[in-house]
């Protein structure tokens, strides 16, 4: 029991510690692919550090929502972390408190408040970004749902730990069309939710074209740091769900000793590194879609996820 | 051996047409080949009537009643059409293109002849595809914008049926193979084993083949290529396309139907009746508003395909007989219609019904031929189509399909009135503009006469051999 709680804390710390690194590696790799040198992979840490040491400016026009939002954006991904397998392949103490759907709700709360906060400021770009994020969200939601349904059809459960066991144990299920289609649909979702390239440009600085970034324009100091850190953690958590639950459920700690869990850390990091290479290839080979084409992109994700569900319900999937 | 010769001769003909020294005589070579094939087919038909079956290579090339009937129709129409082509294509093209046309024509004939000869369903599929391909090249022969458009529609819509039908044949093979465990697949074997095949798979494969080949025989809703192809293709090709090219895929469907009907549990008759009626209905109403006389005859083809399908779906002995005689009568009458349409086109060089007036005064020959053939195709009393339609309707009443018969009869009457009112407009009245005298090629004139003879004869008297051939074919169709 104690050790289980301890590992849960380790998982949370892992996500907190490595989320900025993941963001740094991604941006560095991307610059390298584009024949540029790029910032150091530690740059996100420095950014966060710097922001924490700056004064926070709060408009007197804003309400409590604006003040609460950074904390929610920071905490919610951590709640998700205790529900999913980040380092261990056996359920930890809070694992049965909520399923993948609950994880979706936690992230949804953060997104909801971020949108409200953006409207709260009265800045013209904030509401625009908020409405765009909502649009992407609306389109992504059904895909999430269908993915969860499919997963529950295949493994009779939506608890991430149990789902993960399903793919590890059964190679036939791993290669089944339902699984392959599910992976592709979920990858497209991650790109959309994480604000990656075919949907949104994370390194863009042009306010009119922003989707995700423009919501955070009014935050400063500690608030900005928490928002940034929370966003990076959200992306890492999504990646962990994708990798540890759906794609490559290997490399997780199987034993119950501290050493086992610590050995899992570099293995997971390696997996994430490989995934970031894939992500970079996807991102550099695609162009950012025009806003109204995003519906096509997520529509395609929806189609694929429903196809996955269909092939899993009917015999042979 | 005769069956193989029947297939070899058109291939040889195609080669000879390509052969440079013979290019000038491509038309004569083709005529020679077609008539030789026709003679051989007559021999095959006689032997089928005597013995019930002719075997070329067992398991590969076989002919029974239904295939002998189709062979007879294909070879007859092809033989007459190339006589017509001799006069029709005379001034249009240079020798190179003309020899290309005839080579293609021979290949087209080869593929159509191969379909009824082949004993196995998979190769039948290949042959039907070849028919489509060479047909597409012939339709687009004129190379004008509209003929290419027609060829494109023809190619896309009918080739689209190919994979669908192939899927069906794979499923058929699956059903057959799991029932027999490895016997080679022939139509006869299929019919014998029909009872022990999985009825769900059998129905599924029939559905796919029906959709795939239904598109090729111009059944609604895949009929849209048919009027375009028929209005744009060179007229001799139209005669072949409409008279027998549509019949050939239908032959495969009917063959397959025989297999399905032999299975006690797989019921498909009602599908056929419904789709057949839909085809007849759509065609009848399109006939009312048609403005091009070649398209008019094309829609009438859709109508007749629907009638044949409805009759086959009724699945009684009398209706089967009606269906096969409808196949025969439609082929000979419709090819005549297109020869006449070609003659009118040569004389007036317009295809619009609206701009043809007083045809009887312009050319008494073309006018009376048009009157004759349109009465025949619409199903007026002394003509064979009247007889076969009547026998289908009465078979339907006997079989208890009263509603079907009522609808079918109404639609046939609508089509009848529509065709004759258009023709009436073309024949009577005064020519609006003076038309230059046109010397009709003798071969065209001959073809019309020659094609009219069987139409006239079969209406009043069915010779004993033809009757027994029809009965054999009807027997094959029923799966009994």
């Amino acid at each position: 029991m104690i050790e289980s709680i301890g590992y849960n804390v380790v998982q949370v710390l892992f996500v907190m510690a490595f989320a900025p690194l993941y963001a740094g590696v991604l941006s560095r790799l991307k610059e390298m692919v584009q024949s540029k040198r790029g910032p150091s992979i530690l740059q996100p840490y420095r950014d966060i550090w710097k922001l924490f040491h700056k004064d926070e400016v709060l408009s007197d026009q804003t309400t409590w929502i604006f003040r609460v939002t950074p904390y929610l954006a920071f905490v919610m991904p951590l709640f998700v972390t205790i529900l999913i397998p980040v380092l261990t392949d056996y359920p930890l103490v809070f694992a049965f408190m909520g399923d993948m759907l609950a994880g979706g709700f936690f992230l949804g709360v953060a997104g909801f408040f971020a949108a409200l906060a953006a409207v709260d400021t009265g800045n013209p770009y904030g509401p625009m970004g908020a409405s765009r994020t909502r649009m992407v969200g609306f389109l992504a939601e059904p895909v999430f749902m269908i993915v969860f349904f499919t997963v529950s059809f295949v493994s009779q459960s939506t608890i991430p730990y149990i789902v993960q066991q399903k793919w590890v144990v059964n190679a036939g299920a791993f290669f089944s069309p339902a699984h392959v289609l599910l992976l592709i649909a979920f990858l497209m979702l991650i790109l959309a939710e994480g604000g990656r390239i075919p949907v949104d440009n994370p390194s863009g600085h042009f306010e009119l074209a922003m989707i995700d970034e423009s919501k955070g324009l009014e935050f400063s100091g500690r608030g900005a740091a928490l928002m940034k850190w929370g966003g990076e953690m959200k992306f890492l958590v999504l990646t962990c769900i994708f990798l540890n639950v759906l794609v490559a459920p290997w490399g997780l700690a199987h034993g119950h000793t501290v050493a086992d869990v610590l050995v899992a850390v570099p293995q997971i990091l390696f997996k994430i590194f490989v995934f970031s290479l894939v992500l970079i290839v996807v991102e550099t080979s695609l162009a950012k879609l025009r806003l109204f084409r995003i519906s096509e992109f997520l529509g395609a994700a929806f189609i694929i996820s429903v196809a996955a569900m269909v092939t899993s319900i009917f015999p042979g999937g | 051996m005769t069956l193989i010769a029947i297939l070899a001769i058109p291939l040889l003909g195609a080669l000879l047409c390509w052969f440079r020294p013979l290019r000038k005589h491509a038309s004569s070579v083709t005529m020679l080949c077609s008539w030789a094939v026709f003679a051989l087919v007559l021999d095959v038909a006689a032997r089928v009537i005597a013995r019930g079956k002719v075997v070329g290579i067992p398991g590969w090339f076989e002919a029974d009643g239904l295939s002998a009937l189709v062979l007879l129709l294909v070879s007859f129409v092809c033989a007459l059409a190339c006589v017509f082509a001799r006069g029709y294509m005379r001034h249009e093209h240079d020798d190179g293109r003309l020899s290309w046309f005839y080579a293609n024509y021979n290949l087209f004939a080869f593929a159509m002849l191969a379909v009824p000869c082949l004993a196995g369903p998979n190769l039948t599929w290949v042959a039907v595809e070849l028919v489509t391909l060479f047909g597409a090249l012939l339709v687009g022969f004129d190379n004008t914008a509209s003929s290419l458009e027609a060829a494109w529609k023809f190619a896309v819509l009918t080739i689209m049926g190919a994979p669908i039908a192939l899927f069906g044949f794979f499923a058929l093979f699956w059903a057959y193979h799991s029932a027999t465990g490895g016997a080679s697949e022939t139509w006869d074997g299929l019919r014998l084993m029909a009872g022990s095949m999985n009825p769900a798979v059998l129905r599924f494969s029939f559905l796919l083949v029906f959709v795939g080949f239904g598109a090729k025989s111009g059944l609604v809703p895949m009929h849209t290529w048919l009027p375009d192809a028929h209005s744009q293709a060179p007229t001799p090709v139209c005669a072949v396309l409409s008279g027998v090219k549509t019949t050939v895929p239908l032959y495969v469907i009917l063959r397959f139907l025989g297999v399905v009907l032999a299975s006690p549990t797989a019921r498909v008759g009602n599908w056929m009746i419904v789709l057949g009626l839909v085809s007849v209905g759509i065609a009848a109403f399109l006939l009312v508003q048609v403005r091009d006389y070649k398209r008019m005859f094309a829609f009438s083809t859709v109508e007749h395909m629907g009638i044949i399908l409805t009759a086959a779906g009724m699945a009684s002995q009398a209706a089967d007989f009606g269906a096969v005689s409808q196949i025969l009568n439609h082929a000979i009458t419709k090819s005549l219609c297109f020869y006449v349409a070609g003659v009118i086109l040569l004389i007036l060089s317009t295809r619009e019904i609206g701009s043809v007036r007083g045809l009887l005064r312009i050319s008494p020959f073309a006018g009376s031929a048009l009157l004759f053939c349109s009465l025949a195709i619409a199903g007026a009393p002394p003509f064979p189509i009247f007889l076969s339609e009547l026998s289908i309707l009465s078979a339907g009443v006997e079989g208890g399909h009263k509603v079907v018969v009522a609808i079918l009869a109404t639609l046939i009457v609508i089509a009848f009135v529509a065709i004759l009112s258009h023709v009436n407009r073309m024949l009577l009245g005064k020519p609006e503009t003076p038309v230059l005298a046109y010397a009709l090629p003798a071969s065209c004139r001959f073809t019309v006469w020659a094609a009219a003879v069987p139409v006239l004869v079969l209406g009043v008297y069915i010779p004993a051999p033809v009757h027994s051939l029809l009965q054999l074919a009807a027997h094959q169709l029923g799966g009994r």
Partner: protein
Amino acid sequence: MPSSIPDALNTLCGGLILISAFAMVAVRQVQGVTRFFVAQSVLLATSCFLLAYSQHSMDLFALGLITIGAKVVTIPWVLRRLLPSEFYERREINQVINIPTSLLLSLLLAIFAEFLVSPMVNAAHNPVISLNLPIGLACLLIGAHSLMARREAIPQLIGILAMENGTFFAGIAIAPQLPIIAELAIAVDVALIAVVVGLLTRNIQETLGTTEAASLDELKEEVAE
């Protein structure tokens, strides 16, 4: 659930083939459609080889080789030779129905395919059939749909060939013992289809100066003015 590794990899091929069928509906560029078709054909051939290995069937192996030869090498090459390169750089901006709707329809078709074959699959008790048959039928129907939704000549041709791919994917599962002569004849026929339609396309291009099949709308039943 398939147990052996070749069968497991075959299921992987099946999933990817279905995806490539969707992709062919979704892609706008002519070039892209062609690429996805080639990829799909490679997957089909892979599936042939895998099944040939697990069922020890020379026929299927030969069919895989034929597929590579015809659909991966010959057909793209012939189309390239036959048609000028500007064909491939074309983009279809206006399709008959827009792409999301088109994708939704393809999805419905895939569901319909599963629904249609499920009684047969249940009776067969064969994992390969229960995978290949529905996916093959889905590809067939999706190909037919894309044929109707497309306006360019080449994507229409590719649609037909994609339908053929679906048919073969089902065929290698349900009819692996099909005589090799029939397979050969069918393969030759498929290649001929491509050549003839390609020829027609070239003629259309030369005569009309466009390959937009949608511009072919001269012939229709006029309504009386």
